[in-house]
């Protein structure tokens, strides 16, 4: 199974996002690099709005991901509540 990945800049916001992703995706591995953080996951990766809001303590719009997004791979499926990467499409 191929990996999907997503890479963010490292900052206060993305720390919560990364924590939320790791909590929701057991198979995901995190790779911290200078000023950026890369998350790999075999097959698919799901980012849940509710988990991020929980970590951040405020309302979160999944579109805010793009502010700190560096790169990603995989087919994207986006709803208001979830942003997922996979190779299904």
């Amino acid at each position, binding site marked *: 199974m191929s990996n999907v990945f997503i890479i963010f800049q490292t900052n*206060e916001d993305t*720390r*919560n996002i990364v924590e939320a992703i790791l909590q929701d995706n057991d198979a995901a591995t995190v790779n911290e*690099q*200078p000023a950026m953080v890369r998350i790999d996951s075999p097959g698919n990766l799901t980012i849940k709005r509710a988990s991020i809001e*929980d970590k*951040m*303590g*405020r309302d979160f719009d999944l579109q805010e991901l793009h502010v700190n997004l560096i790169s990603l791979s995989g087919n994207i499926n986006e709803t208001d509540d979830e942003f997922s990467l996979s190779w299904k499409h």
Partner: protein
Amino acid sequence: MHLDLRTVSITPLRQTFDSIAERIGSDKPASRYQEATLDVQPDANFHYRPLWDPEHELYDVSRTAIKMQDWYAFKDPRQFYYGTYTLARARMQETAEGDFDFVETRSLATSYPTTAKDLALQVLLPLRHVEWGANMNNTSMCAYGYGAAITQACLFNAMDHLGMAQYLTRTGLLLDEPAALDAAKQTWLTDPKWQGLRRYVEDTFVLKDWFELFIAQNLVLNGLLYPLVYQHFDQALSVQAGPVVSMLTRFQSEWYAETSKWVNATLKIAAGESTDNQQLLSGWMKTYRDRAITALAPIAALALADKANAVMTELLEEFNTRALKFGLTP
């Protein structure tokens, strides 16, 4: 000349302060909220007890009957420390200022129907004094409480109430003349309809147990008054005369939705700590709930006329469901 560029990864020797690392582990960076909150209140090396209260230390856990293993368990789900709090409020204030501007520049206040305006002023303006009471009470919780996790949030809450008292004042000045504020003060002091609520507010001023005060003010009074005024009364006014007053009270309704998260989380933690806490909190909740329902009945009747009883029953049901959610017995 040949230049070789390479990335060097520098890992920090420490992720955060030692005192924070003791709580959250030294392997991960702490959030600003954690660094600005955990163990911030001094708890050692006080040489003397305060002269005004020699029974207690300056910061003393025994000022409330509630017992906690760790007073820093009260994590604020909004993660407010000074920086985030002021930013969040600045955003809300910007919206509110915009709303006031909108109403003012389009002279919406002058074209607002007189009956609705009178009713709005009668209900909203005396609430300035309730807001001031809430400010006093939350300042008191901050002063006598234990642990920065809860006391800082109480002080933020106190400032919010002061701000909302000012928004009510400005609403009054926008819809009417300054004399309306004096009239509302007289109503607060003498009108029989308001005396129940005034008694409730003034009785809470002398509560010694700050957690009991938290229940009386932040859970019970706010939990019933805000939905009554800023949801039901607001809706009734909008149906009758359009959304002008809703715009002027938008801060309050947004604030209530946000702050309830903190109150819910705090009580869930306190009640979950032990059955003793749970029983104490439930007992206080019942006492003040029944008092508040009686105190608010005449205000509901003033605001909603014949719908008052139905709304109060609905509010009570909602309140009880909410209390159940964080483990209190209604």
